[in-house]
């Protein structure tokens, strides 16, 4: 029976020491600052189209990367932070947002379609739920080739009502594929709160219907995310089949840059900001690892430099060469 299956209480990962936790903190901060610069660039119309910021959810991507760094990832369009957590440089990402030739997709993809093959970051996708079946295929390949890799698939609470999501769950469980499905429940699909999207607001229940192991937890603490995603990856890697994780998080900004997010109940945002991933990990580093304000200032400074450098790089980069217009439609026949 579905209910009887559960994840190991602890992952196989060692607890983080000061240095490695500091590294994760820096990554979260870098994502935060780069997103803030992206917002600024958007208001200056240097970035156009949609721009979905990850601010508030950094602990999910960074925590997951800390436990599945070599694995395959697939995700939706709110993926700037995920791409960076997985190894894409701030420069390459910002250049793609700016629509430049130096961007991750040569300016073909844009904000919603970041890809980084070198780091097995298999894309940001724009059709809600549409990429979830793709993840089962990546896991299929990994399993057939006995790669001992899993595919981590991120999607939002809004995707948990899509047929594509359900069919992917059915297939992954039937074929016992090594997929870690991560539902980032940030409480809203655009302007619609979860309780108006779904009769059940515990989305990990979706797993029961297909007999899948699942777990729901709060993801504001990067160490918790690292451990639970690690536990899920251990489980899937061991050949036990897929796992559905519902990670409760929160987005501090609107759905996209054009959304004032007036639909939030008064005080909700301030309340949630108390569990800002950066604040939580900063406190932990200060309290348990004795990091000083000076230490944090140093990190802040290097992050500022890196973020600003990304902006400068993107800004200075050339537009795509229009003579390449037809180069991205069909792959050339090898050999």
């Amino acid at each position, binding site marked *: 029976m579905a209910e009887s299956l559960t994840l190991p209480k602890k992952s196989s990962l060692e607890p983080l020491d000061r240095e490695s936790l500091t590294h994760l903190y820096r990554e979260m901060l870098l994502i935060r600052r780069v997103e803030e610069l992206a917002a600024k660039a958007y208001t200056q119309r240097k970035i156009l*189209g949609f721009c979905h910021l990850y601010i508030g959810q950094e602990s999910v991507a960074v925590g997951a990367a800390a436990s599945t760094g070599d694995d395959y990832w697939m995700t939706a369009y709110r993926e700037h932070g995920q791409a960076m957590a997985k190894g894409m440089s701030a420069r390459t990402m910002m250049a793609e947002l700016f*629509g430049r030739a130096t961007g991750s997709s040569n300016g073909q993809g844009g904000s919603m379609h970041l890809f980084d093959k070198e780091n097995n970051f298999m894309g940001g996708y724009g059709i809600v739920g549409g990429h979830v079946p793709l993840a089962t295929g990546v896991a299929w390949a990994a399993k057939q080739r006995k790669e001992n890799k899993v595919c981590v698939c991120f999607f939002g609470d*809004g995707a948990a009502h899509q047929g594509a999501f359900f069919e992917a769950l059915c297939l992954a469980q039937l074929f016992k594929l090594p997929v870690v499905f991560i539902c980032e429940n940030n409480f809203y699909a*655009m*302007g619609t709160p979860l309780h108006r999207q779904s009769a059940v607001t515990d989305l990990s229940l979706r797993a029961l219907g297909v007999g899948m192991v699942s777990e729901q937890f709060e993801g504001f603490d990067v160490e918790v995310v690292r451990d639970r995603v690690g536990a899920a990856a251990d489980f899937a890697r061991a050949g036990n089949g897929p796992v559905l994780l519902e990670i409760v998080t929160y987005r501090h900004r609107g759905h996209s840059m054009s959304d004032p997010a007036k*639909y939030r109940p008064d005080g909700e945002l301030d309340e949630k900001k108390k569990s800002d991933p950066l604040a939580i990990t900063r406190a932990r580093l200060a309290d348990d690892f004795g990091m000083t304000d000076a230490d944090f200032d140093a990190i802040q400074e290097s992050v500022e430099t890196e973020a600003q450098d990304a902006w400068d790089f993107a800004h200075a980069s050339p537009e*795509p060469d229009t003579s390449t217009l037809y180069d991205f439609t069909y792959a050339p026949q090898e050999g």
Partner: protein
Amino acid sequence: MAMIQIREALRQAMQEEMRRDESIFLMGEEVAHYNGAYKVSQGMLEEFGEDRIVDTPIAENGFAGLGVGAAMAGMRPIIEFMTWNFSLVAFDQVINSASKIYQMSGGQYSVPIVFRGPNGLAENLGSQHSTSVDSLYAHFPGLKVVTYATAYDAKGLLKAAIRDPNPVVFLESELTYGIKGEVPDEEYVIPLGKADIKRPGNDVTLVTWGKQLFNVEQAAAELAKQGVDAEIVDLRSLRPLDHETLFNSVVKTGRAVVVHEGFLFAGVGAEISARIQEACFDILQAPVLRVTNRDVPQPYATNMEQLVVPSPERIVQAVRQVMER
């Protein structure tokens, strides 16, 4: 006459019809509490309440089917796709349910439903968010496919679509919701299947629909300077097609250029071109040319994106080609 935005014209059409007919309801993502992703349904929740202005989860195949079932049961749903790109996950319901139930049931059940939402380019959204679905739906008997460029047409055509006893695919545009136009204060309805001559002319027929009308009008102005008097036929309905207006114009001018967004291959422009040469073969002074998206998935970067879609320059150039014969 009032000058109103196209989004207001569409809203008025829905409001007027909903006041007239209890069985009409609007359903889609963010249409109610958020007042519409593009504010087309602003204020409608307040007026009509949650039973008639209904937010849905992101389950297009599900709620498109819900609309079809409700229509079979005698209601008149308006199903909003936040954009038509997302109708691709609901494609089966629009084709295999909506377009075929009247026929499969031997005429027992009709499906009076409107599927509406923005179509085509919205700028810098990349290839998954820039699809023009015109030909995908116009291909199928059982559906009607309607679009507009002006506020006047938007309102009159949407009212007709809502009153039609058949499934209607109604194509809008994010980029033009804010464009203002004159709309009469008294009620009016524009029958489906009637094209409109947006500019009379004698030298060449420019066939278009939807927001490309604006590029075509710019091109026509430029051509006028060059001494070419273009007639602009705005089809408005792709299915059914107004052959009379179309062919009469080509018979008069002897030349035609079709301009539309979306892909060339088996696009609606191909159908127009094929029909013109079938019907006006002896009159045609030059081949019917088409100006459409270039044959690539829509790139994100502005310079590339603008290369892909039709432009006044490309239209003028095509007209020059047909005039040179």
